[in-house]
């Protein structure tokens, strides 16, 4: 079952429309919630008058910041980075779209009418949108907050992560070439197809029932409990299918708080579904970054050191910006050996909407910069892109600066295999020669480029761990209870495969009961690239536990030692004499009879980084980060229309070391999606903002890839870790590591085709051609 292309188990309910997403939850007597948002980027709220709105027939409740307790929330809540955002604005708004009031009414029209009738008096404050304006001494203060250890004379610094090691002076002395470039990545967004949505129902027993489009039910429950002043036991997050997330649904959102509070106030179910233009204009996007990158290399291309400054425009509140600047450090030190580093990342407040993680969370930004510059350096040194990457690639046994060990790494094999498969060197040098000698006057030019990336496999952040329970029906079929939430990646299928493997049963004999805080054990959630590793191991252990109990019980009835037994298709048999057998069903029946009613329940749990108390420091990047790291090399082949500047990705090849691919069909699906998202980021996607206003708040104008822009994909499995039965199960991340190498590869391929070096995304060659 492991390693096979099993079609996803939620396929039938999704192909027939039966799967219920949060948007599909309709409860009797349900109210509709709509949000009043700030029209100003920065202002004091002097007064909110809801008196007129309240009188409109059909309006059931209106809440403002005054109804919320004086509690703030944050993606990160630590002593260094205290929570900085209210669920509803208190006395000040800091971006256009910030939530001010929420209305529950009998229908949408009435709710909107009430929203229009709320009168807010503002005193406008000066606003700042650009990071380099925001750090100036005369910039307006967006928050009172000051980082105690900030040494730079910068204003509006929401977070700072600094880490350096090695002897930089010596590196400078040894350097043959020093290259310095500035790279900028755009504001991109997730484009999850299911809008942000929540249904909350506070029932007569005082239980708050919540369905919400999210990435992890236990994290949402923790946030809601804090912000609503309610015990965890009084909040239940129900399972609903999730129509895509890509990082954008992990934070606590205002509407989740508001629907809950409105339901508490009215005693009725309340539903909020964000409009698509609201999502594009006001919700959390990815993180636009400016990266100043100075790299010191020896004559042979060996990296001697790097000096890196990352400036992250985190928007009006901290969001995940401070995590992103830590991760940027991580994606600098990962795929290549960096002996000397001077890194500082800044997360800077501006009067823009808040930022969230998005697939890669720092990796696309950093890899675009590093891989582009590495190609520049290689060309200046007269060595090819493959050689310079092989020279610096991390290998098995490497110790990262924070102390993590690279337990296995297939990066060198990835680079070598992808070179062979794409005939990279030959194509690259041919194109480059033609470009350099201006020999290519054809309208459509081809180029090839490579990018390399690495990604972590889960870390410690609440809820830190996953647990699972395996129980049997009388006929020996299995039910697995897991808090995992399938957000489209195929979590439930993977978990079923692991159980099927451990218990040697058909996948059809397994039912996964998932994603419900009342009915399933704790789960880390579908984020930080850790589900298959953390939850997968919990489920594996629960299965092992069940298997052991079954075998030891069967051994008694078959009168043999349990080591001589094996199982298949719900039958336990003697290995040497398969005729001697007993069904799961009979074992369970006997076990219940002979063990005072014990029905055999398997229990399993897992937490990564077993020796670490907590995750890495966001201040100085010290401390354990992850148990294992996935590696990849990706090659893009592009065609550029020199008349129009239109760039097309003809083909993408991904050589990946994702540990052991439990389901290659799902692994390919993850890679396809990431290549497509990267092509969008490279070529067309951008949220265009002016003074805090989003100018293109729609799918049409945001320009994400459509079917006619599909990129042909090829895959190379580099398996460094064979899956061995009974051995510790070390799969690696596959959900977001492959959005970065290919992004850089596309930029490098465009250079190879045209001689135009992109330093800003999306790539625009037309302004650079003369």
């Amino acid at each position, binding site marked *: 079952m492991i390693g096979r292309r099993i079609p996803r188990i939620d396929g039938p309910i999704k*192909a*027939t429309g039966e799967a219920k*997403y949060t948007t*599909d939850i309709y409860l009797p007597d349900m109210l509709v919630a709509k949000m009043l948002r700030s029209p100003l980027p920065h202002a004091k709220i002097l007064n909110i008058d809801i008196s007129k709105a309240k009188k409109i027939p059909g309006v059931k409740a209106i809440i403002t910041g005054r109804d919320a307790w004086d509690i703030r929330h944050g993606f990160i809540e630590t002593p260094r980075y205290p929570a900085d955002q209210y669920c509803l604005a208190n006395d000040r708004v800091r971006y256009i779209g910030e939530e001010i009031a929420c209305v529950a009414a009998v229908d949408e029209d009435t709710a909107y009418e009430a929203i229009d009738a709320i009168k807010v008096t503002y005193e406008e404050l000066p606003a700042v949108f650009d990071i380099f304006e925001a750090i100036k001494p005369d910039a307006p203060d967006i928050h009172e907050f000051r980082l105690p250890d900030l040494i730079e004379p910068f204003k509006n610094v929401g977070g700072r992560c600094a880490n350096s090691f090695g002897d930089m002076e010596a590196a400078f002395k040894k350097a043959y070439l020093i290259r310095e470039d500035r790279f900028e990545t755009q504001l991109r967004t997730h484009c999850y197809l299911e809008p942000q949505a929540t249904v909350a129902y506070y029932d007569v027993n005082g239980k708050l029932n919540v369905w919400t489009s999210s990435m992890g039910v236990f994290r949402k429950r923790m946030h809601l409990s804090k912000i609503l002043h309610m015990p965890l036991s009084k909040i239940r997050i129900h399972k609903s299918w999730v129509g*895509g997330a890509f990082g954008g649904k992990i934070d606590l959102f205002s509407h989740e708080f508001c629907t809950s509070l409105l339901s508490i106030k009215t005693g009725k179910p309340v539903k909020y579904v964000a409009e698509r233009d609201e999502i594009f204009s006001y919700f959390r996007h990815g993180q636009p970054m400016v990266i100043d990158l100075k790299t010191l290399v020896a004559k042979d291309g060996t990296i001697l050191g790097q000096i890196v400054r990352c400036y992250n425009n985190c928007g009006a509140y901290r969001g995940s910006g401070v995590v992103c600047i830590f991760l940027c450090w991580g994606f600098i030190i990962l795929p290549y050996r960096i002996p000397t580093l001077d890194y500082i990342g800044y997360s800077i407040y501006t009067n823009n909407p808040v930022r969230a993680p998005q697939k890669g969370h720092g990796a696309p930004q950093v890899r675009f910069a590093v891989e582009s510059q590495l190609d520049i350096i290689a060309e200046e040194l007269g060595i090819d892109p493959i050689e310079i990457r092989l020279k610096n690639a991390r290998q098995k046994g490497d110790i990262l600066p924070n102390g993590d060990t690279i337990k296995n790494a297939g990066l060198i094999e990835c680079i070598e295999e992808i070179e062979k498969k794409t005939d990279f060197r030959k194509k690259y040098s041919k194109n480059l020669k033609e470009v350099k000698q201006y020999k290519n006057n054809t309208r459509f030019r081809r180029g090839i480029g490579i990018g390399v990336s690495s990604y972590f496999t889960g870390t410690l952040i609440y809820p830190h761990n996953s647990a699972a329970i395996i129980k049997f029906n009388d006929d020996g079929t299995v039910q697995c209870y897991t808090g995992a939430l399938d957000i489209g990646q195929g979590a439930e299928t993977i978990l079923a495969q692991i159980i099927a493997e451990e218990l040697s049963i058909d996948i059809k004999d397994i039912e996964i009961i998932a994603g419900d805080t009342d009915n399933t054990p704790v789960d880390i959630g579908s984020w930080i690239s850790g589900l298959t590793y953390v939850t997968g191991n919990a489920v594996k252990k629960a299965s092992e536990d069940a298997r052991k109990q079954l075998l030891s019980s069967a051994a008694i009835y078959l009168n043999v030692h349990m080591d001589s037994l094996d199982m298949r298709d719900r039958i336990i048999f003697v290995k040497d004499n398969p005729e001697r057998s007993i069904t799961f069903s009979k074992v369970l029946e006997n076990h219940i009879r002979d063990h005072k009613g014990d029905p055999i329940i398997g229990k399993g749990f897992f937490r990564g980084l077993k020796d670490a108390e907590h995750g890495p420091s966001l201040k100085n990047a010290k401390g354990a980060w992850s148990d294992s790291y996935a590696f990849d090399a990706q090659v893009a082949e592009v065609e550029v229309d020199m008349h129009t500047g239109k760039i097309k990705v003809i083909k993408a090849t991904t050589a990946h070391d994702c540990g052991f691919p439990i389901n290659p069909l799902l692994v390919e699906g993850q890679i396809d999606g990431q290549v497509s998202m990267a092509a969008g980021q490279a070529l067309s996607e951008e949220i265009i903002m002016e003074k805090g206003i989003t100018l293109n708040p729609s799918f049409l104008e945001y320009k*994400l890839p459509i079917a006619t822009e*599909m990129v042909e994909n090829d895959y190379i499995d580099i398996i460094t870790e064979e899956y061995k039965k009974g051995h510790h199960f070390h799969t690696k991340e596959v959900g977001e590591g492959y959005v970065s190498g290919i992004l850089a590869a596309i930029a490098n391929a465009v250079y190879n085709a045209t001689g135009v070096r992109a330093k800003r995304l999306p790539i625009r060659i037309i302004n650079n051609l003369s």
Partner: protein
Amino acid sequence: MINKGVKKRLITLNINDRDYHVIIDDRDTLLYILRDKLMLTGTKDACGVGECGACTVLVDGKAVLSCLMLAIDGQGKKITTVEGLAKDGKLTDLQKAFIQYGAIQCGYCTSGMLMSVVGLFNTNPNPTKNDIKKAIEGNICRCTGYNKIIDAIEAVKDKRLKDKNDR
């Protein structure tokens, strides 16, 4: 209220071979009636302005965006939603192929995507790869990069043509 005085009327819509008598006001979209009034939530609402294709249904066999069509215009027509594809609890070859080839991830675009493809096959049983891409270019999918969706559609096409030739 904005909708005060808007006339309500009773109409009949034939959806998945069944007549539904629904009270609408003239502004109601077909999508709204399907989801909010008839609880046929297989049809998805992802943008509401005709840009994403998630709400695609068949009207007299043709793929139509139900968010851009008024419910009142559905009278006297044969409407098919994703719920109407499987017959007697058996999935169609297209639904099966979507599952088999990994064309479904989060699933939110799936219903609309399926309906666009049924619409395509109704008019063109032998589409080229380019025809297929064109037919679904109005259906946004963020998960799959479209690769496995197109694989699934091509597989169905090939199998249907083969079955026809074998007959």
